[in-house]
């Protein structure tokens, strides 16, 4: 075959690098479901709005985690640390130093990035579980600091009275205004992740996710791009932390505990790791699911657990993957 290579005509070029053909339904369905959940909360207000609001904040956090874990295939148990840094920076600077919410948020972001750089630079050269252990450690350390540094963080008591975000003089404090603002944040986050994923940067991440040695052999600086991925994840974590304290008006160490890490992992896998819509739909479904089992009373946790297990059995690639599978099955 190769001793007489077939002549490829000039008209064969240019060759567009087309993504794998995916159905329209698969691309749209998760967003429709997400929009329905948010729409319901907007109409209902009250408690549903609070639950969905938290879910949207988590969607930002998990989208960041997804850059590191999904796109780059690394593991971090310590992203809660960066959310804590962002959240505490916002809370402390706005309540104790009368900063505006935006500069406080940016300061938190800078602090989170500095911390991520300090932990990431030495550890990201390591492989797999060394990195995971290091990230777990930073999560615990930051939690401990939040508890012990009472003069600044007020320890377990937490900081209350954090002012809501105001945009051009309009205070975002009503249920609906908060939901709309958070939805906008989630959409912006998803657009950013989609952009990153399809960029040269995203290709480098995908290469590292595929095979670190193969990526290296192609000239990709693996350590550097892992660090960039880690920093991006930390940035989204920090922003979600800041959003949280402004929406709730309160922060305490409990908010950024190991529970947050476990919950965010659940959201990532239920939603669909490595996809753009996955973290969003995952955050919403995992937040809303326990509420739908409220009528089960004592068996609420049991039903929730069973539902999660069923989801992971029948949708191992997450909800976003489930839609894609249904979509391809429809076609001949």
């Amino acid at each position, binding site marked *: 075959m190769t001793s007489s290579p077939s002549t490829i005509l000039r008209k*064969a070029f240019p060759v567009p690098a087309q993504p794998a053909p995916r159905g329209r339904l698969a691309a749209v369905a998760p967003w429709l479901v997400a929009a329905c959940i948010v729409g319901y909360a907007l109409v209902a207000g009250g408690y549903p709005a609070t639950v969905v609001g938290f879910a949207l904040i988590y969607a930002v956090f998990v989208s960041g985690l997804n850059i590191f874990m999904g796109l780059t295939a690394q593991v971090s148990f310590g992203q809660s640390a960066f959310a804590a840094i962002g959240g505490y920076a916002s809370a402390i600077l706005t309540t104790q130093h009368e900063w505006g919410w935006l500069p406080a948020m940016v300061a938190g972001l800078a602090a989170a990035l500095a911390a991520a750089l300090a932990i990431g630079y030495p550890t990201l050269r390591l492989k797999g579980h060394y990195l995971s252990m290091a990230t777990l450690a930073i999560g615990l350390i930051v939690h401990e600091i939040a508890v012990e540094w009472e003069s600044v963080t007020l320890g377990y008591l937490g900081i209350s009275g954090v002012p809501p975000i105001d945009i051009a003089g309009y205070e975002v404090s009503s249920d609906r205004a908060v939901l709309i603002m958070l939805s906008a944040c989630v959409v912006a986050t998803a657009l950013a992740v989609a952009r990153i994923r399809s960029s040269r940067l995203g290709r480098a991440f995908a290469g590292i996710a595929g095979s670190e040695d193969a990526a290296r052999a*192609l*000239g*990709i600086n693996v350590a550097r791009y892992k660090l960039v991925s880690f920093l991006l994840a930390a940035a989204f974590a920090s922003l979600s932390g800041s959003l949280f304290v402004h929406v709730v008006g309160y922060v305490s160490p409990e908010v950024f505990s190991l529970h947050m890490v476990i919950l965010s992992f659940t959201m990532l896998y239920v939603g669909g790791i490595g996809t753009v819509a996955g973290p969003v739909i995952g955050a919403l479904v995992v937040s809303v699911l326990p509420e739908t089992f409220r009528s089960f009373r004592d068996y609420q946790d049991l039903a929730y657990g069973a539902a999660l297990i069923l989801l992971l059995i029948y949708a191992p690639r997450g909800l976003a993957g489930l839609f894609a599978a249904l979509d391809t099955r429809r076609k001949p």
Partner: protein
Amino acid sequence: MTAAASGAPAGAVPVPADPVLAARGLSARYGEVQALAPLDFVVGPGELVAVLGPNGAGKSTLLRAILGLVATGGEVSFMGSSLPRRNPAAVANRGVVLVPEGRGIFGPMTVAENLELGSWRLGRDARERQRRMGRVFELFPRLKERLGQAAGSMSGGEQQMLAIGRALMADPKILLLDEPSLGLAPRVMEEILETLGVLNRAGLPVVLVEQRAPSALKLAHRAYLLSLGRLAAVIDPREVQSHDQLAQYYFA
């Protein structure tokens, strides 16, 4: 780049006087374990050098050592200047490109995306990328038909073609292949080796690590035989007439 080592006198194993790749006293360790005892290894301009030996002989380690993927001793120089150690990306940037064992293709990505990643260090030069892609399609027309397909869903042979195609996208000055025939049907393997021959005759130096010695020897100008992490022999393929003779080398 076309002058191979064929001008050397028959009989003695001809070693090129002006090698493109030259390793001197190259050794490799995995932690405490020495996986490769110090050896000299050279590839001349336009040469196809086979590295043979049974499982665990250190063949893959030799390639990994050249790239600096493992801790090494000794020195490797390429086109006159020494290659950095423990910095495989920098080595790749010099044009030393590896097709790793098990192919290392990016399964969830499409064929097109895999090829694109191959030309990573090209940056954003779309015209040059397309030129290289066209060249890959000349060698492997099948890849062109599968551009939009997820690489992991292709047959083993096609995946190997993709792995080689992706390496060619990097515009290698020398191509290192780690057991490209692994797990392939003999007919597919012949096809792939033939393509390597085509590339080599066009002037590309190739280092081919193989367990299946006979087919590799058909193409090779010289062969290094490794055994238990040491260099056992350097062979002139023209002198290997029979299986028995090769077996002698293996078990010597």
